[in-house]
């Protein structure tokens, strides 16, 4: 293998910061309950992960706060929303979609500020997809009987929704849009570290003139989530997050008969055959694991390379890593932003240390990380055994484990050797092999010659311990409906 070239000096980009003037933050936020701001009894500070700048004080919702939010949702469900014609519900959702499009830049800047993801991702991925999700489900609101013929679909009631910090506004839209389209009301809890776009979204609801109580937002940590899960007035729980918390929620709901959908962790295999288009595959691998700093449940974190192309592929991959620009999330040139929180950074560091200790070889491109804030360089581990923790556990960071295989059968065997089953990738120019692999990979989403693509019309969700239920598409309506037949 040839020595890797250092970063040439002329690769230095002039800073291209996106202005944050467009965002006006309140110093303090309460909980959004019944269309009004409820003064929180407990609070905490939410930070910008790029430099730990305090952004605002937000509420830590107590059981009483959650109770009021559920009560507001119950009232709104009983007093109008559940009997509103679907065509009218649709128009509220269309309004929300349009307002999100109009205020996209404001939301994108705030998303990058509070979450740490590069502005080009929040601008080009999160915001367009969030608006599209509302637009898509708006159209379903008055067509449910065509989606489920002979089944007499009706709303479940009050949905409790708990979302993660990796795609804060996008996950909000995945949860709220189908729930409202089906006639439910919701209490949503954003992630502890990324509450701000959800709180700003309340202003969109005001502009859309959504009836009070149809959407309620309570902020806080896991205690708030637990209060929501345990509340008797909630008819359905939708959770996106870690497999451990998902299992705890499933246990907690045992015997209650409440509806539940879980979208949990992953350890996706990205399988690269020797007849792939190599340059495209390298781009796909990079997108698969370094997109959003690897804070992606479906990230392609286990790379399986056919032995015959192992050396050239790894060399190209390392070379490509040297061109990734790590830095200020608000800089339009940035490819890899800040790690979302100190806690997550420590988790990544701990797992990476275990990879070194267990005997894997680590590669990180030379890059200057900012001194303040939470940062982790894009990382590749080679010489990884399947038993290593970095090949088994979800790291949820910009860390790739490279393994090898010889035959397609071996690739399938190794790819499926995990309790997870959220997503998988396959790279080959041979069509029949793509379909052969797609049939055998035990995962809810298979990306062939692409990776990390999302669309409101495309069902997303896991096999095995990656959860159950689908979000997106017609299938994404079902968790929010009861059926007479």
């Amino acid at each position, binding site marked *: 293998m040839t020595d890797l070239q250092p970063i040439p000096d002329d690769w230095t980009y002039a800073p291209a910061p996106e202005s944050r003037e467009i965002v006006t933050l309140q110093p303090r936020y309460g909980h959004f309950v019944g269309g009004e701001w409820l003064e929180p009894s407990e609070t905490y500070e939410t930070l910008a992960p790029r430099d730990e700048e305090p952004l605002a004080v937000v509420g830590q919702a107590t059981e009483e706060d959650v109770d009021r939010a559920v009560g507001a949702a119950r009232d709104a469900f009983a007093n109008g929303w559940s009997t509103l014609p679907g065509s009218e519900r649709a128009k509220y959702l269309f309004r929300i979609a349009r307002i999100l499009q109009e205020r996209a830049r404001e939301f994108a800047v705030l998303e990058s500020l509070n979450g740490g993801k590069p502005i080009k991702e929040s601008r080009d991925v999160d915001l367009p997809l969030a608006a599209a999700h509302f637009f898509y489900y708006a159209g379903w609101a008055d067509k449910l009987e065509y989606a489920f013929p002979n089944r007499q679909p009706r709303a479940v009631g009050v949905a409790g929704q708990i979302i993660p910090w990796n795609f804060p506004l996008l996950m909000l839209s995945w949860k709220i849009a189908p729930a409202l389209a089906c006639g439910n009301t919701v209490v949503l809890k954003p992630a502890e570290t990324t509450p701000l776009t959800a709180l700003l979204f309340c202003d969109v609801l005001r502009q859309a003139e959504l009836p009070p109580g149809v959407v309620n937002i309570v902020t806080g940590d896991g205690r708030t989530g637990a209060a929501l899960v345990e509340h008797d007035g909630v008819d359905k729980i939708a959770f996106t997050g870690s497999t451990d918390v998902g299992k705890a929620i*499933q246990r907690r709901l*045992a015997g209650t008969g409440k509806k539940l959908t879980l979208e949990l962790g992953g350890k996706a295999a990205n399988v690269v055959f020797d007849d792939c288009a190599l340059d495209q595959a390298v781009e796909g691998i990079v997108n698969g694991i370094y997109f959003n700093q690897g804070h992606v449940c479906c990230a392609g974190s286990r790379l399986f390379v056919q032995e015959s192309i192992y050396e050239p592929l790894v060399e190209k991959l390392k070379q490509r890593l040297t061109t990734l620009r790590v830095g200020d999330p608000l800089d339009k040139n940035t490819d890899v932003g800040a790690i979302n929180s100190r806690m997550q950074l420590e988790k990544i560091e701990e797992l990476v240390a275990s990879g070194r200790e267990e005997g894997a070889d680590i590669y990180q491109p030379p890059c200057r990380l900012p001194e303040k804030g939470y940062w982790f360089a894009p990382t590749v581990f080679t010489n990884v055994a399947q038993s290593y923790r970095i090949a088994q556990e979800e790291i949820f960071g910009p860390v790739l484990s490279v393994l090898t295989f010889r035959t397609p059968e071996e690739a399938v065997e190794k790819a499926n050797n995990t309790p997870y089953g959220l997503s998988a990738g396959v790279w080959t120019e041979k069509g029949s092999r793509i379909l052969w692999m797609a049939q055998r990979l035990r995962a809810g989403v298979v990306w062939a*010659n692409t990776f990390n*693509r999302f669309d409101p*019309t495309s*069902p997303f969700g896991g096999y*095995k*311990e990656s959860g159950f239920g689908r979000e997106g598409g017609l299938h994404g309506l079902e968790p929010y409906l009861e059926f007479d037949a």
Partner: protein
Amino acid sequence: MTGRLPVKKTYKLFIGGAFPRSESGRTYEAEGQNVASASRKDARDAVKAARAAQPGWAKATAYNRGQVLYRLAEMIEARAGEFAELCSGREEVERSIDRIVWYAGWTDKLAQVIGGSNPVAGPYFNFTVPEPTGVVAVLAPDEPALLGLVTRVVPPLVGGNAVVAVASELRPLAAVELAEAVATSDVPGGVVNILTGRRGDVAPTLASHMDVNAIDLCGANGVSTELEELAADNVKRVVRGRADVQSPWEIADFLELKTVWHPIGQ
């Protein structure tokens, strides 16, 4: 003392296409007979047999699975008289047969009703197909002894799952008879496994088993805090099945949806 002494049947378990006694050596008396009483080890053996058989069953063409299930209906019809004596009567047998025929016709229609192509906003071909969840544990209801078992076991089979079923505890003989019909119907060994015995002996083992992907709690009256808590250990799909119901959504409860993306280009 004249005439011939009839040969009596030994009522055994059905695991991996064979009819073993319980490894525990235990039986219990039900409907006037000594019936094998499955142990936790028997339950684990049944899961192992189901796991081994499941990929082959899933790989069979939908057309083939439909014919095999139709053959099962033929086998029950052929011994309808015996079945009638082991359940509420002829009508229950006929409803069971007709239900199997109805489900047999679904194998090659599900993908079009449940899956489809998705019009994503980009240059990608994107489609969604149903696939089997894997190994399904079924707690059959006590009544109706035959129709209840058929109602809960056949839908997961339609979609390509393998099943470990716990028979009616009070009326297990119809289940043993059904096992004999299954054994002669071209259903591959291990795809259907039937345990008789005390539900409480084996249900927790099946609910907590890490190689069981879904559990149908019909026989636990559809709800069980203890079994559902155990099921969370590997995020099992928990189905609260009804004893007498017939719909494609019963099949869908034991299916996963897989979505595949591929770029469109020159």
